[in-house]
């Protein structure tokens, strides 16, 4: 399942949802707000989203993941709104019988979410300026 959250992401709860007694492997990715990005000192940032479409597209990605990879469970939550340095921006968790599927599915979800889910990052830098950030490769 894919969710948007305007509060701190509860990664422990998400992990509990992802666990499965028949799964031997669990891969999780967490993206945090760094104190710097693309050479600038970041003070805080905001993620804007198009909520209905974001949830729809995110869940389409999760459904594709279940089709493409031999996994047990997959969850992804993306934070929106105002975030501080060190806040978690995105959490992706996958459980699977074998490690290869868990790694590949996790990476697939993260890459697809970054490129397809309508969410946009606006950074405020320590010099007081702010701006929309283009996707990094």
């Amino acid at each position: 399942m894919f969710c948007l959250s305007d509060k701190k992401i509860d990664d422990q709860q998400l992990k509990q949802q992802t666990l499965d007694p028949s799964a031997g492997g669990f891969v999780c990715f967490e993206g945090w707000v760094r104190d710097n990005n693309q050479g600038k000192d970041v003070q805080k940032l905001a993620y804007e989203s198009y909520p209905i479409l974001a949830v729809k597209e995110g869940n389409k990605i999760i459904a594709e993941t279940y089709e493409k990879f031999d996994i047990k469970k997959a969850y992804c939550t993306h934070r929106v709104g105002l975030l501080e340095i060190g806040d978690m921006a995105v959490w992706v968790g996958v459980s699977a019988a074998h490690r290869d599927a868990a790694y590949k599915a996790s990476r697939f979800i993260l890459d697809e979410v970054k490129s397809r889910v309508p969410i946009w990052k606006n950074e405020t830098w320590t010099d007081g300026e702010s701006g929309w950030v283009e996707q990094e490769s």
Partner: protein
Amino acid sequence: MIHLEILFFGKLKEIWNTKKLTMQTTSSNIEELYTELLTKASEVPHKASIKVAINDEFVDWNSQLKDNDSIAFLPPASGG
């Protein structure tokens, strides 16, 4: 004449200086509507990178418009 709601996201809000506008138009598809909207833009955005949605669904640039549609213009995603 049809009545439309237009939504802009991310940096497109800055280019059109609004996040939402309503308008009457004779444009019949997205392509024509976009050309019409360009007259109100403060700069010309990189069109190839823009995605379009009608009523909360991604659609093609040649999609037809109908009365009371809600059209969204989306710059490239930058989440994660």
